[in-house]
């Protein structure tokens, strides 16, 4: 699962930084039918989390009510230099992850 995650490369200690996440995923609702009328099984990213150097700072439970290619924008405080680790999983058990470094000064 491809994802685009944007965070600032650098920040001052204590600064609130914006995190933007866009994951490529159909977020299949489970209410649609295929060409021969069979129900297409639900397959959505049901859980997403963001850890800042190992500490969870944001988590989301998603459902079919979230648009395809889910976009999430949230905030976190730049505490120290380290990594933001993102993980998510869909109904079929396919996991995705991404890691972005951040340099914190001051």
């Amino acid at each position: 699962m491809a994802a685009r995650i944007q965070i600032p490369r650098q920040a001052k200690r204590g600064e609130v930084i914006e995190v933007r996440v866009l994951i490529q995923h159909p977020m299949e609702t489970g209410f649609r039918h295929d060409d021969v009328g069979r129900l297409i099984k639900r397959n959505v990213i049901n859980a997403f989390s963001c850890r800042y150097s190992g500490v969870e700072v944001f988590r989301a439970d998603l459902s079919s009510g979230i648009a395809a290619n889910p976009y999430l924008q949230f905030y976190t405080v730049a505490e120290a230099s380290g990594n933001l680790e993102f993980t998510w999983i869909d109904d079929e058990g396919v996991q995705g992850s991404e890691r972005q470094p951040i340099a914190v000064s001051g």
Partner: protein
Amino acid sequence: MKRREFLAGLAGTLASPGAALAQADPLESIIRVLTNGAPVRKGKVTLELPQLADNGNSVPIRITVDSPMTATDHVKSIHLYSDRNPVPNMASFYLGPRAGKAEINSRVRLAGSQRVTAVAQLSDGTFWSDTAPIVVTLSACLDES
């Protein structure tokens, strides 16, 4: 269903108008499960949606909560509800003091014109909400999307 059972059920409904009212607004009973009966007050939460969406498949949404986001006073979770989607609980977001700012942006799917509700739980255990109406011209339909 037997006539006797039907009449018994009808009598029960008439006897407890509160239960009948709760059924009239299905969201209320769903939110009550979240709050475990605690009151949900209006305020603190701001839910921003476009007034009109041409296409319900992807509608931008922003939720902000008026909170200092400190260790003792912060937003614990934000829950998004639709009163018309087949799955009313669209998403739940869990934050904490490390968030720094209680704001979330995302994009939702909406099955038709409706009212969208956001409920936030604060660290002191209180619940706050905001509701926004939206007109959806082309709903996130079951098969045409």
